């Protein structure tokens, strides 16, 4: 579904990504793990078009993406749950969700989409009139995921959904991600919470200082010596 080939990204004199190549197939949950500053966020931003690659190509559903601006990529079925959630603090939960379907046509009926998000995260239904900025961190993360789902994406990308959340909340979120995966949604998950991500992932890539240094099935990497030493501190 997604083919990233030889992508390099530069910020001024700094090179953030070096010749990154990976793929996500339909129905897969692929994880990218790695330390802070490895370039994980940059990969997602490049896929969505917020960052321009210096070299390389990105194909989505068989068509090259590189020339399209972010809003066209969203319309083609890519949704991002960004790092730090980036919700709109003064906007109500309901309005935020409806904005999530911004690229859907004028006549699209949003009610079933909203209902599906409320089924997944019932707490959002009880807060629908509340301003997004007044929600707890976990609820804000659910809202950010709900907002992305509202676009009815073919590929859902998540950037460190576990960041800054309590373990109980993380477990709950990962259960929901498992549920989404079970429904056949294609997911690209970027995480520092390596254990959880690898457990859920079909396949995973390890990104260090802008390069992919290892790849494999989720459970393989979970058992890998290097991963255990470096990321799981076993």
């Amino acid at each position, binding site marked *: 579904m997604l083919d990233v080939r030889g992508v390099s990204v530069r910020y001024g004199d700094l090179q953030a990504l070096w010749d990154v190549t990976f793929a996500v197939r339909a129905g897969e949950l692929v994880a990218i793990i790695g330390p802070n500053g490895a370039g994980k966020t940059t990969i997602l931003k490049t896929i969505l078009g917020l960052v321009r690659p210096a070299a390389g190509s990105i194909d989505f559903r068989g068509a090259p993406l590189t020339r399209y601006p*972010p809003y066209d990529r969203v319309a083609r079925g890519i949704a991002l749950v960004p790092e730090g959630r980036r919700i709109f603090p003064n906007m109500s939960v309901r309005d935020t969700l409806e*904005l999530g379907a*911004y690229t859907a046509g*004028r006549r699209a009926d949003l009610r079933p989409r909203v209902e599906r998000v409320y089924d997944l995260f019932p707490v959002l239904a009880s807060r629908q009139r509340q301003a997004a900025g007044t929600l707890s961190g976990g609820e804000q993360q659910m809202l950010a995921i709900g*907002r*992305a789902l509202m676009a009815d994406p073919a590929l859902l990308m998540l950037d460190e959904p576990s960041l800054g959340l309590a373990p109980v909340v993380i477990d709950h979120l990962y259960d929901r991600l498992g549920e989404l995966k079970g429904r056949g949604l294609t997911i690209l998950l970027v995480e520092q919470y390596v254990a959880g991500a690898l457990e859920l992932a079909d396949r995973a890539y390890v990104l260090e200082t802008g390069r992919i240094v290892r790849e494999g099935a989720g459970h393989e990497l979970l058992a890998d010596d290097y991963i255990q030493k470096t990321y799981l501190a076993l």
Partner: protein
Amino acid sequence: MAPPAVQTVVELLLGGVSLGGLYGMMAFAFSLALATTRILNVAHGGFLVLGAALAMLFFRFLHLHFLLGTLLLLAIFLLVGLLFEGAFVRPLMGRPPHAVLVGSILVTFGFALALEAFLGFYWADLVDPQPSFTIPFPAPTLQVFGLTLSGTRLTILAIAMLTAGLFHLLLTRTKMGKAARAMSEDHEGALIIGINPRRLSIRIYLVGVVVTAFSGILYSTTAPLEPYSGLPLTMIALTIIVIGGVGSLPGALLGGVLVGTAEVLTTFLAGGAWAPVVYLLVFFLVLVVRPEGLFGVREA
């Protein structure tokens, strides 16, 4: 008959509030464009002047029919909005945030100066040697409890309130308004959910220029505008959003009424020459006392 003192106070208050409502609507157009596109449009006040000048040209010199003239003005203002956005806003949008702000100042300041200079020069040359734009609009006065109220000012106040109501509906009920709010609250968040910043900014400038130019016409029904009134009007808009916060509709209205009332009272007590001193002092006072704005959060 009410006592003369009461009559004077009521007149001053009505004058201040109606001027304030007018200021509020033009300041909100300025504020919305700033919040969503990060372009600080120094030429904003120039749109008021342009509106008044064209209206005067059409109605007083060419004697166009009211409806025809109004439609023609609307068409011209929409065209101005479209061209302004395309020529000055779009080229700056891809630059980094600091470059956008500085670039927007240079470009729009340059445009404002050119507009002032050319308007003043050619108006004096072709139309009237003393450029001054005013459109007398003698609405009948209203008698309430023995008080005489200016129909013109009441009309302005009503239009300003109606516009504020429409702005409110735009922001809370329409897709475009919600997208604009999202854009001003979190720029990148708005891009991520697929908002097309170009399309949004075109619409915001279309609405903004029309509202601003028509508020210029309203302004010129009570006081004349000159080619050089543009930059001071931009300063007034800026003062209002420093008071009320960028992107806030209630803030713009409250700030507008505050500045408008201060201006009318100052003019009454000390003369018109002191009015700009008062609003500029308010501007600096707010900056020192409450840099984040009186009613809102201002992003620098």
